[in-house]
């Protein structure tokens, strides 16, 4: 690099377009999009009102009870007997306006947390699956990934069984499989014999102590698992397994799965978040996987490979930033969906524990007073759900147009 400095051809000192990053570009397009701005304003209003109410507007739902003010229609002017109730009151005489605003804190929180769960778990699984499927890993990379994965997967049974060493066991399993895989790498034939044989032996031995039939059955099972393992670990096998699991989750009707999860975890806001989050995992897993696979097909990833960049650099500098925009769009839309699902769970009585206000639960509680004319108790929480969901949908739509300029002309 000691060559002299020289100039060739004269420096071109103009660029075609003015200087701004794609993100700024997208932001400008978003701002220019009127409906998206409406969505953004709605979303921000809801978020702000909920946050401010939570931190600065005292409300103690536990003591909120006033039989004398029950089921009052909206009251815009205070009189001797009644306070102002913008949205009326419910059966326990609680101000619906107040509860709607405070309920926003809970409802929006459910949406946010649920989407975060789906996004984190689904996104990471999809990312790994896509990465495994499209890029040749080296030993350490797959070692670390499989160990982490084993640990993550192990956490679930560990948490259920309250035996945390299982997580470590799984992690070791992941790491071990990679080491063994590595050891047999290039010895395709060995791999084909060793794994099934080992599986059959390992499974059959303890079975022998019980009886020959058990040993036989265990041996066959071990053989099958061994055959499965005799395919290279990592790579497509991993991706296949993950995607199959996602298929299974997807083939359950979403509400039923959420209800089942809530039934398992017990009711409550946090449990609802988990349930909705889990149900949403496959969406993000699939999205992330396909996004990774399409990005890794791009020439600039090949270029980074040619430059000699490592996989982790590739992941963080090329893949992640470029799969972000579809994921952002999906997450925004997903938020809308999560709020709707949370409201549905709340409506069925599986959401927030009373007296905590939550829109779906408020709707579910007050719905039975509709026939006696208390329309306000149903209208306002319902409107809150619809408007906030609409806001996120509008915003998501706008983001899609802004981040993916293909559609625009």
């Amino acid at each position: 690099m000691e060559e002299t400095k020289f100039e060739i051809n004269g420096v071109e000192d103009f660029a075609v377009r003015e200087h701004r990053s794609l993100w700024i570009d997208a932001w400008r397009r978003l701002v220019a999009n009127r409906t998206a701005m409406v969505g953004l304003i709605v979303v921000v209003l809801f978020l702000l009102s909920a946050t401010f109410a939570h931190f600065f507007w005292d409300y103690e739902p536990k003591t909120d009870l006033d039989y004398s003010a029950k089921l009052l229609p909206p009251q815009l002017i205070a009189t001797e007997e009644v306070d102002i109730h913008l949205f009326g009151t419910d059966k326990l005489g609680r101000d619906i306006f107040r509860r709607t605003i405070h309920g926003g804190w809970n409802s929006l929180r459910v949406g946010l947390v649920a989407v975060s769960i789906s996004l984190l778990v689904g996104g990471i699984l999809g990312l790994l699956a896509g990465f495994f499927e499209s890029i040749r890993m080296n030993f350490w990379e797959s070692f670390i990934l499989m160990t982490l994965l084993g640990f993550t997967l192990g956490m679930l049974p560990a948490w259920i069984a309250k035996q945390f060493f299982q997580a470590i066991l799984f992690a070791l399993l992941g790491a071990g499989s990679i080491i063994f895989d590595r050891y047999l790498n290039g010895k395709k034939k060995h791999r084909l014999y060793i794994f099934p044989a080992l599986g059959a032996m390992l499974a059959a031995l303890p079975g022998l102590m019980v009886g020959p039939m058990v040993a036989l059955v265990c041996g066959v099972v071990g053989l099958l698992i061994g055959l499965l393992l005799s395919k290279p670990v990592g790579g497509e096998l991993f991706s296949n397994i993950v995607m199959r699991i996602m298929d299974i989750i997807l083939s359950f009707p979403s509400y039923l799965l959420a209800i089942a999860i809530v039934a398992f975890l017990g009711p409550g806001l946090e449990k609802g978040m988990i349930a909705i989050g889990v149900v949403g995992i496959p969406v993000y897993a699939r999205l992330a996987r396909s996004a990774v696979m399409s990005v890794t097909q791009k020439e600039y990833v090949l270029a980074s490979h040619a430059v000699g960049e490592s996989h982790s650099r590739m992941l963080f500098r090329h893949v992640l930033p470029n799969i972000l925009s579809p994921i952002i769009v999906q997450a925004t839309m997903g938020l809308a969906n999560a709020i709707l699902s949370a409201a549905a769970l709340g409506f069925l009585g599986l959401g927030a524990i009373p007296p905590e206000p939550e829109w779906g639960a408020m709707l579910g509680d007050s719905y039975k007073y509709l026939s006696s004319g208390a329309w306000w108790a149903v209208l306002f929480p319902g409107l809150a759900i619809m408007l906030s969901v609409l806001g996120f949908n509008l915003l998501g739509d706008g983001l899609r147009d802004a981040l993916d300029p293909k559609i625009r002309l």
Partner: protein
Amino acid sequence: MSKKTIFKLFGLLMVVSMLVAACAPQTATEAPTGEVSDDVFIFGRGADSVQLDPALVTDGESFRVTGQILEPLYQYEFGTTVPVPALAEECVASDDAKVWTCSLRQGVKFHDGTDFNADAVVFNYERWRFTGNPYHFDTQVFEYYEYMWGGFDDDSVITAVTALDEYTVEFTLRDPLAPFLANLAMDMFAISSPAAIEAAGVDYGTPSVGAVGTGPFKFVSWQEGTEIVVEANEDYWGGVPGVGQIVFRVIPDDSARFLALQAGDIHGLEQAVVEDLQTAESSDDLYVLTRPALNTGYLAFNYKIEEFNNPLVREAVDLALDKEGLVANFYGDYGEVATNFLPPLIWGHNEALTDRGYDPERARELLADAGFPDGLSEVTIAEDIVDAEGNVLYAVGDKIPLRIYYMPVTRFYYPSPQEIGTAMAANLFAAGIEAELYLEGDWPTYLDGRRNGTLVGLYMLGWGGDNGDPDNFLGYFFAKGEEPMKNEGWYQNVEVAQKLQEAAITPDREARQALYEEVEQLLHDDIARIWIAHNNTPLIFSTAVEGYGPQPVGADYFEFVTFVD
């Protein structure tokens, strides 16, 4: 294979499926009319029947229908809990009260045309009692038989049922049983046609078969989850019923049911929210009837919590609850504040007892006296609480937040448990008892928790009577004895148990009544639980119909319903 072939295949598939559909057995009835006959009474209810073989079920919605189709030997008098003869003309006890001889009503026929006689009664009782009986199927649980008569086979209190002649049956008991007639009158001991059971086998009582009895209505059809249709039995011994058909229609949601009534889709319903009741009362098209209360909603203590063993704390809780307010707001005019476990309708109810009243200030003082001047928000576990698998959920000395569990489902005694729970918690909060509302899963989980004693705190529950006998209330909970009751918060009161055991075998009604009143007094003094309310369940009807008779216990009388012209 080319695309065209695929299209052809699809076409073929369509044609074949149409043919199959066309050749399928045509199950339904004659050419439909398309009009609602004005002789059909449609009753809206919250849930479908489980089974129409009454011996197999425990739910009121099953009995509501079986009560129209089948009859027991005795039944409860219209509007009361007094047993009166039905299929039996009279049952007479022997002096030692161990043998009952019943003479049966003559000339009664089952809907399938077979005769009702002593053999039919014997057939039914033997079927229920003997687990080896060919019609006592393995998959069937004759739960109430076991519960009311002490068990099956040799455990049964009834040691023999014999036909003395065609219309006389003799029941032989191992021990005297005070509520024998009341038990006899229960809907689950209604007599089914032996021929029908023999024909249908294990399917007897299912939607495809229905039930065959002697009652005022005959089974017509059952669309699961939707409706059950019965039609008038023109040959009924008690006279021809007032309407040609009854449809029991399932509308699970309270307010949807009321809307359906308002829209004229149904003629009557049971269970509605208080506000709808007010609407109904003020409406010209609707009127409200009430079912006399045979239920009690209560708040129970888990006695494995140290603080609850302190009577001062229990009293403070009692005083902190605004029961009048709760009842006024959630039960309307139909509920009453409970002072006894036994509803006033049942003899044994102790008139002398009164509610301690609503006094949050006094509650605070009591709490302070009990050593909680700053209120109570945290409680201490006094004994290990163990779940069904033996895992220790809470160990001695654990401090946990004070909880108040509310029920996840609506019951007669708690018409809107979540809101009532919320209100109770607010009441307690106002008196310095900071109880967190808590939901232990859904109903099965809740009941599991109750059964295993793992509801750690205060919890809502209640009881509805089966046969109008006080033993059915008090005996079930407090008679078991000397050891603490796991399934009711580990409460233990030996004195109460002894009195109840005595009452159960005392033939003399007066003596029994005295014992029960004493028991109520003891429970009141001990504040074993906090009785909240009895609910006179409201039923709403269209003014187009009249004559419905709500029963405090057992199935309602539908045969007196008629249309108003």
